[in-house]
């Protein structure tokens, strides 16, 4: 989606003092990119752990609620870091990101995965055995785990493909 309003906003943003500072000082973008990748690493590992447990790969010895409480907390801490570091990169190069189709797809995927994570956590907060209770829920849990992993993997891939569109 490339509208004139979005283009005008990108041009305006690119000429703001903050954007000019990010563009001028050489180390800002690489440093922020490093923080962004480290935050993605924390999220991806946590997502993998929660989703593998949700899909019952490591068995049921450790309760899902305890497991998810430990790792989903990391996701909620890392998301603001990703948002802040991503915002700096967008301000630094607004034309390259805001008007980029892959960037827009990435943002849609991020919103989708946040919705999936909330949908997974909400019933678990009320009932610790919710996803293990019935055969139907166990199948749904595997579907949620596969969907969540696919979404996060797509987000990482989209992050790289932004540079090529």
């Amino acid at each position: 989606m490339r509208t004139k309003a979005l283009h005008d906003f990108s041009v305006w943003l690119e000429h703001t003092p903050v954007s000019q500072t990010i563009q001028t000082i050489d180390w800002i973008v690489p440093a922020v990119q490093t923080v962004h990748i480290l935050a993605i690493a924390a999220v991806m590992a946590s997502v993998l752990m929660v989703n593998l447990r949700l899909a019952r790969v490591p068995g049921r010895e450790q309760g899902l609620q305890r497991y998810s409480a430990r790792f989903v907390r990391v996701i909620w801490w890392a998301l603001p870091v990703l948002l802040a570091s991503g915002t700096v990169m967008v301000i630094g190069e607004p034309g390259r990101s805001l008007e980029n189709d892959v960037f827009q797809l990435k943002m849609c995927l991020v919103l989708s995965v946040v919705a999936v994570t909330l949908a997974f956590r909400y019933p678990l907060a009320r009932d610790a055995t919710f996803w293990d209770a019935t055969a139907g829920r166990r199948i749904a849990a595997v579907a949620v785990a596969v969907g969540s992993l696919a979404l996060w993997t797509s987000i990482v891939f989209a992050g790289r493909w932004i540079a090529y569109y």
Partner: protein
Amino acid sequence: MQLDAVLKSLEATSVATAISEHDALFPWIESLHVLAITLVVGSIWIVTCGSWESARAIAR
């Protein structure tokens, strides 16, 4: 000079030619590389945090 010759022969391999000639191949490989980095670094972080929590529990 020797290193230069090695790099040139590496550049002439069929794999290197395929990567340079196909537009999409490099971004796909790069994406997989970044995904692998996040999983490796994240796993190290999980193991380190787990060890740290265990050490704290023992100290208590």
